């Protein structure tokens, strides 16, 4: 067993820390308030090669795995970027580059990967629907064969980055669930080029992470050629799992990062702030919950890297899924506690926007809902890891 990072991984982490120092909390405060995309940050991570991380060298990338992706994301988040250290990278790298690397044809790889690696092509994923979220099998968006391609209709919701993305990973049914031999059959992934007249994108006002828009996407009579299919028709389910597990893992890395950032902020503030005689950081009422959250975060971090290692080493998807869900559940629970106690430590300043903790609070609250709710992650552990009866139908 070897817990050490390689020299290259440590240098990558250092580059991430340096970028984070150039895009500190004040930068993200401004972007959040203005509802603006962090163009300067995007440029910096593009130039540093972050968007080519999982892309093989022959397509202009670096050919690394989810482990390195998690490492740099956590460093960005923990060193001042908060959720922004994960958000854009996840949308383009996890929803675009990763599935294309694994399942794309030569033509698809050449069309998308070099542009993604250069930071010139943003991606998004259209999975969730008003009536299908965690119950992906009930996806209602339908692609009907027509000529040399498919005619697609459906409505997607909470699609982040769809307003800017030039590429969209669209999850659709090609065989209706009641006509499929089993429920996992009939799911197909499509690569759709945006903007497109048949795809209407409307941003949804939301609680946080306003440096990126999250949208409703209405698809009306969109025609795509056969070449737009990623992987195999009707057999997209397992390819989709290879997107959802990494998504869970980068959000876990982000949660650990945000938790560390909040704890560092709380410790720095608590150690100098005096209300009565001693610094408030000397009070056990603050020390214990912060220490507890920290210890749990570090535990979740270890488990998350194990899940990343399993994924990179081609482990069975059930093992990856179990590990990723456990890491996610613990990381999010404790990152939420970390931010809660950071806010408690900062008192009124914790509620004031320019002290950032309230923004991280809004950010971390997303992760208890997405990429999967805490409750569904726990259901997964109970059912698939512990062998308890499925509790919902």
């Amino acid at each position, binding site marked *: 067993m070897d817990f050490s990072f390689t*020299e*290259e991984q*440590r*240098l*990558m982490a*250092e*580059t991430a820390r*340096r*970028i984070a120092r150039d895009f500190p909390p004040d930068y993200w405060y401004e972007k959040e308030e203005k509802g603006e995309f962090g163009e300067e940050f995007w440029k*910096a991570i593009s*130039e*540093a*090669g*972050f968007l*080519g*991380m999982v892309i093989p060298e022959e397509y202009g*990338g*670096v*050919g*690394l795995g989810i482990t*390195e992706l998690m490492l740099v994301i956590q460093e960005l988040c923990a060193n001042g970027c908060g959720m922004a250290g994960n958000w854009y990278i996840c949308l383009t790298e996890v929803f675009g580059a990763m599935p294309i690397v694994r399942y794309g044809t030569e033509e698809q790889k050449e069309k998308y990967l070099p542009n993604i690696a250069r930071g010139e092509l943003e991606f998004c994923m259209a999975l969730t629907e008003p009536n299908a979220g965690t119950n992906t099998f009930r996806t209602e968006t339908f692609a009907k064969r027509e000529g040399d391609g498919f005619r697609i209709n459906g409505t997607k919701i909470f699609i982040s980055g769809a307003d800017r993305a030039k590429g969209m990973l669209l999850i659709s049914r090609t065989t209706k669930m009641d006509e499929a031999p089993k429920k996992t059959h009939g799911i197909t992934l499509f690569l759709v080029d945006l903007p497109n007249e048949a795809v209407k994108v409307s941003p949804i006002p939301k609680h946080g992470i306003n440096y990126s828009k999250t949208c409703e996407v209405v698809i009306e009579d969109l025609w795509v050629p056969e070449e737009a299919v990623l992987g195999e028709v009707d057999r997209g389910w397992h390819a989709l799992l290879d997107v959802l597990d990494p998504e869970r893992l980068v959000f876990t890395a982000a949660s650990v990062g945000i938790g560390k950032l909040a704890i560092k902020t709380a410790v720095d503030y608590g150690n100098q702030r005096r209300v009565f005689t001693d610094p408030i950081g000397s009070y056990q009422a603050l020390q214990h919950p912060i220490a507890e959250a920290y210890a749990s975060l570090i535990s979740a971090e270890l488990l998350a890297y194990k899940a990343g290692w399993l994924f990179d080493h081609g482990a069975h998807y059930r093992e990856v899924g179990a590990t990723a869900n456990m890491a996610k559940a613990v990381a999010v629970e404790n990152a939420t506690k970390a931010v809660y106690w950071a806010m408690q430590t900062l008192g009124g300043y914790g509620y004031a926007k320019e002290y950032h903790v309230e923004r991280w609070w809004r950010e971390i609250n997303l992760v208890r809902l997405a990429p999967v709710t805490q409750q569904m992650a726990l259901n997964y552990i109970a059912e698939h890891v512990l062998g308890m009866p499925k509790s919902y139908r």
Partner: protein
Amino acid sequence: MKVVVFCKSVPDTETRVKLKDNRLDKSEIKYILNPYDEFAVEEAVRMKEAGKVDEVVAISMGPERAREALRSALAIGADRGILIKDDVLDGSDTYVTAKVLVKALEKDGAEYGMLLFGQQAIDGDTWHVPGQVAEMLGLPQAGSIIKLEVDPDAGKAVANRLVEGGEEVHEMSLPCVVTCRKGLNEPRYPSLPNIMKAKRKPIQDYSIADLDLSPEEVGKAGSFTEVLSYSLPPKKEAGRKVEGEPEEVVQALVKFLKEEIKVI
């Protein structure tokens, strides 16, 4: 033309310095490439990108961890590294360091056009080594430069230094020594592709025997100076605010300067 950049592995700028048994407690320190050396590496790499330099060599003297500082230099764009590593080097002062670096230069072949340093290392902060190396080699030197123009064909370099109220311009024949500071350039982030490329670039290891030096010539034995003790700076005390009419404030201040701290 080959240029050589000198790199030092130093504690990260965010390190909280702790002392143990009158020595620096190194147990929890994270090390980085000295930030001033980054300006030097960046400048050398830019010269190479501009076609004025054929090869950028990074040299470091230090323990095994200095290899990572060299790897950072290679990731910025240096071509190869040299690590001078030997247990007997422990305790070497700046004079010995300069002597060893000069030996390594000779070993690598003397045909370099320029030697670049960071103006200071953020740990020891002596500013000694570049000047000593220049002196030992009898080379012209410009310190703390903010602009550099090199003309390899004409065999000269022009360097600008910031001085009070203006700039000082030095024209030097090559080879020469320069030391670099903030303002000279904006060092790039080592990109991930370059970090992966750096992995494949060679780092040559030298012991002091490889450099024809004996243990008596280096370490504490060969040094002129020795660090006797370390102490943390005194804790900053809260300031005092003098309030009142301007006349009263001035009187109070003069009294303070005369009687309490006795500087006037």
